């Protein structure tokens, strides 16, 4: 046991001597002032292992090989062609009123229910019609969260109309978040609350 122990010790010391990766030779030179005299006190134990050649003020180091600065020019990217939409806005037919929501909320308010009933009735009377529900938000908060919130508002609106008997396949949805406010005159609540809305668009097949 003891023999093994001694052997391990010998091996280990061997490792100390050889085990480190090759490195710059640490010169046991005296400590040089490092920026301020106060810092020297703190750094007294530090050995400065710089292997820079000792340079006197009048002797200049070789100019290092030149660096050529280049940059890839930013050419314009061509946005991908997007498929033309299958349905476009039908402007002449029935005009639905917007419904409104409370700040950071997507539940249908009682004051919106009569409007949704009217919309559902119209949909049931015109079985060929398709509509798009746009979810919108006020500018408070961040775009991404507001896009998710607008999506929830559109979905809550659709679900309500579907519950009144309209086939869900006849209703498209999109969220515009805070990106398309209808009131931009001020940042007052009076204006902001008009932007927290679901908006209805009657669609027709493109080209017809």
């Amino acid at each position: 046991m003891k023999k093994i122990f001694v052997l391990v010790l010998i091996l280990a010391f061997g490792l100390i001597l050889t085990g480190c990766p090759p490195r710059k030779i640490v010169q046991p030179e005296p400590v040089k002032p490092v920026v301020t005299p106060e810092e020297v006190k703190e750094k007294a134990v530090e050995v400065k292992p710089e292997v820079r050649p000792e340079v006197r003020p009048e002797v200049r180091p070789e100019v290092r090989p030149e660096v050529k600065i280049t940059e890839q020019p930013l050419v314009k990217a061509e946005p991908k062609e997007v498929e033309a939409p299958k349905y476009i806005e039908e402007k002449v037919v029935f005009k639905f009123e917007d419904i409104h929501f409370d700040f950071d909320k997507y539940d249908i308010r009682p004051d919106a229910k009569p409007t949704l009933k009217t919309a559902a009735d119209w949909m049931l009377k015109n079985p060929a019609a398709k509509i798009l529900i746009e979810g919108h938000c006020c500018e408070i908060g961040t775009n991404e969260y507001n896009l998710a919130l607008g999506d929830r508002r559109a979905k809550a609106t659709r679900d309500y109309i579907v519950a009144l008997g309209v086939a869900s396949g006849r209703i498209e949805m999109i969220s515009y978040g805070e990106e398309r406010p209808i009131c931009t005159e001020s940042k007052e609540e009076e204006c902001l609350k008009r932007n927290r809305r679901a908006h209805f668009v009657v669609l027709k097949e493109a080209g017809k």
Partner: protein
Amino acid sequence: MREKFKVQGSSFKVLVFVFLLPTVYCLLFTAVEAKVYIDISSPAFKKLPIAIPEFSGPSGKEISDIIRDDLEFTGLFLNIDRSAYIENPSQSFNPRNWSPIGAEAVVKGSVKEERDLIVIVSLYDVFEGKEILKKEYKAGRELIRPLSHTIANDIYKTLTGETGIFRSRIAFVAEDEDGKGIYIMDWDGNRITSTGLKGNIILTPRWSRDGSKLIYSAERNRQWSIYLLDFTSMTERKVFSSKGTNMAGDILPEGNDFIFSSTKDGNPDLYSMSLKGDNSARLTSSHSIEVSPAVSPDGQCIAFVSDRGGSAQIYVMRRDSSDVRRITFEGSYNTSPAWSPKGDRIVFSGRRGATNQIFIINPDDTWLTQLTTQGNNEDPSFSPDGRHIVFTSDRDGFKGIYIMRANGESQKRITPKNLRAFGPRWSPI
């Protein structure tokens, strides 16, 4: 038996100790290798007084001014005004001209204009009276700013031991009469360039870790899709599309996968997918909103926004969706999380009173600090060295892009007054 075990136990300890010793020994000696003039990681560091005389030759003033502005913005240097200089630019460096005015480092340079601009720069240590950096740079006239930023990076590296950010860029969204588009500019707001990428709505440009790609979302013809821009070929590719709202989150550090928010299954939830379009995985499934995923630098955690607790708050979970915890508890509306490059801080936008402000917090929900107070401030993200933050603000009456130090100091707008700009992201390198 017991006795024997004990002996083995103690010799095992010795064994561990003697094998650990060389490791410790190696670590000790690597730690003291380079001389650092400013220890920027020390909370009590002192600003280094630096003198940057106007460079001689054509465009010398412009180049030396850019270098001065770069170094000054870091807050690590005390720029000594040129009017105080004793030594005139044509004289050779003499420490006795600089120590009386308090300079500890001096940058001198000369410019020649042939086909290219050729700049020779020297950096001097006044205490030791010696040159600690000398280098020659060459660049076409149109690259005068990247040229100057490269010189500033070398000076910064020599004095602090850290890599400078002066050649980093910022991707952002701006609006003109043709709609919204993605733009790129230098970190200091110069050289604003359109990528040509447009959409009715286009947002959330996010860099890949190597800076070679941008992922973003756009609404075109009532369709929300996620796109990838490859800077090497300058081509755009659609990486994900479905009915509903799809928003880019982040490219994972390995560069093959991305995370995003989508309502494809009915609810705003988080997903991951490869950039090739396969390996789709769902990361959250709740009845609430989950949006704005941001992956930690080590790729292990995802910060995101959820209203599962009744209001928009920031949460952190592991990449496999386990271990979800809420990290913001103050305020009823906290969004847009972004990680510091070391992963030790998260910056976000929080609503307080009637405005949105930028806050910084540790991922374990400690050390909440408010960084802004004026106007509405949103979309924060860190510089690659973690020392600065870029964000959107409307404090000057319109949306523009601002930068500040990570402690909230030196806030300034970097986009021009006539450009409505928002959604900035600092490049990772």
